[in-house]
């Protein structure tokens, strides 16, 4: 190969946001090393650089919670001096704990329910012929493309009429409904690839369709369920717009049931009127670290789940 370095460089050049480009050391032209060596140095360097770009800001944010307001406003690179944990207490007292609990309560129900209903719909759509099958399928899948906030106000009234505003069950049902398109789309593809032999054997043994689904097909679809489940956990965990409309106290005596994203945005907005930036950073740190720990403990499953998602 005469000009081996150019191609991956191009790939990378297009891929890096411009302001980062400036800081990356490009491979020196005229380097006489072999292709493998040059590429190795280059790729290692670049992989490491990106890792730094991920870790550094996060670390900086955590450190910032130990700064005073004056230090935060001063130089970004100043080392924190205020090594006290009362800032975390202050942040915790802003309700971060409750926000966590609320989020968990919702997700514990909404994700399994999403998976169950999504799998049921996807299953019959994938494996049973009936008139209108395609129509229902496209009907479901089409919903994945619509931006959520289009539906906000009518949705609000719908939930209100069901008397479910600012309730966990209301938010859970809405989460499920809005996660269905994606779930059905994904599981549909998955069920189509499952072998039919086992299913037929079960039916021959006298199992009903329902039993065959729950006892044979669903367990076989476990890898697919796991990966879609991960998508749904991430998606619902990060949801902001839906709860910000549906989880507002309806009277002043109605208790606040904010989820974490809402709580954090509120914390950020409070900065607008009573400046306490360290508390904001501490709050974000508190919200961030458990997620990272959970991820680190389950990262194998996460990656395995994603792997199975692409296996056919």
């Amino acid at each position, binding site marked *: *190969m005469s000009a081996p370095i150019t191609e*991956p460089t191009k*790939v*990378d050049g*297009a*891929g890096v*946001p411009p*302001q980062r480009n400036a800081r990356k050391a490009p491979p020196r032209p005229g380097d006489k090393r072999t*292709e493998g060596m040059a*590429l190795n140095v280059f790729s*290692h360097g670049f992989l490491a650089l*990106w*890792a730094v770009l*991920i*870790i*550094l*800001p*996060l670390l*900086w*944010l955590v450190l910032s919670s130990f700064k005073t307001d004056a230090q*935060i*406003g001063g*130089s*970004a690179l100043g080392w924190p001096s205020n090594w006290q944990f009362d800032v975390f207490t202050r942040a915790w007292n802003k309700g971060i704990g409750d926000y966590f609990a609320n989020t968990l309560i919702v997700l514990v129900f909404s994700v399994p329910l999403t998976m169950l*209903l999504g799998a*049921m*719909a996807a299953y*019959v*759509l994938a494996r049973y012929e009936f008139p209108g099958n395609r129509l229902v399928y496209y009907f479901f899948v089409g*919903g994945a*493309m*619509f*931006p959520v906030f*289009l*539906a906000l*106000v*009518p949705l609000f009234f*719908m939930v209100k009429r069901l008397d479910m505003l600012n309730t966990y069950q209301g938010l859970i049902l*809405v989460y499920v*409904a*809005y996660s*269905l398109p994606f779930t059905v789309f994904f599981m549909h593809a998955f069920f189509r690839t499952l072998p039919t032999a086992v299913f037929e054997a079960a039916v021959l043994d006298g199992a009903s*369709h329902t039993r065959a*689904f729950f006892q044979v097909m669903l367990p076989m679809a476990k890898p697919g369920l796991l990966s879609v489940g991960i998508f749904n956990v991430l998606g619902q965990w990060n949801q*902001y*717009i839906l709860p910000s409309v549906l989880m507002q106290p309806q009277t002043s005596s109605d208790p606040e049931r904010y989820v974490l*994203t809402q709580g954090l*945005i509120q914390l*950020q907005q409070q900065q607008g009127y009573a400046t306490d930036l360290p508390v904001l*950073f501490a709050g*974000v740190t508190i919200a*961030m670290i458990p*997620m*990272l720990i959970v*991820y680190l403990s389950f990262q194998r499953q996460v*990656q395995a789940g*994603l792997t*199975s*998602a*692409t296996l056919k």
Partner: protein
Amino acid sequence: MRKGQYRFVAGFLLAPLALYLIFVIWPYLQTIGYSFTDWKGQSQTFSFVGLDNYKALFQDDVFLEAIWHNILFLVFIPVITILLALFFAFMVNAGGRGGAGGVQGVAGSRFYKIVYFFPQVLSLAIVAVLFGALYRSDSGGLLNGLLIKLGLVDGNNPIEWMNEPNLVLWCLMAVVVWHGVGFYLVLFSAAMQSIPRDIYEAALLDGASRTHTFFRVTLPLLWDTVQTAWVYLGIIAMDMFVLVSTTTQGTGYGGGPDHHSEVMANVMMRNFLYFGKSGYACAMGVVMLLLTLILSVVTLRATRRERIEF
């Protein structure tokens, strides 16, 4: 048997369909209804104005600019994210050179896979706070702080990242890419791992370079996954609401400086809540919906290829 089957199908579809109709389809249809009214959003009173909202839309420079920005995002975010993720995935999985001519990832590939995924587990609210602090327009921002320290930027004239018309879109894109690359890295690695190793080894035996292997072997086999990634990223690019509304300049859901970072979602929200032009905002929503539909169809058509079986 056949009858029982229909009952079974109906039974399985009933609950999901009902939920979906009540909470998703019905509200969307109502939004379409609202778009023909002069609804102001603070009460349930309005009158019918026909197509006025739609006519006004096409003279609304801010909204048209927002569409343009979404299109830019739609082009750049998927391209950049996917290329970076592919590159990383390739390096992590097949970038290393094993002693006996085998194929393996670079050293520390597990570490990279874990770290790169970090941003994905952080909620957008956290990401918004983080980048707000990162892009801060004086020496207190991480970027400015670093650049000033390195002597690349004058402390008296720091870069106002989010207040520079030429930078703001790129700054926003950088956030999305930063947030997303890890996810697609893992997704693509998974797909790469499912490619039988002997294909690589055969390629290596043929004397193909890594570059060559990537473009001739890996990429075509990954095409399906890339297409999926494209659709996800496209949806993200059409949204951008949380990021734009919390990190950019301007009164009423950001979008500044001087509309240089407007996207459809935040223009819509501003009209909806801030200006009280809710019927008009719904018309924007309907246009967004149509655009999303068109783009999805186009994307799926354009990226359709013969699937390679292996």
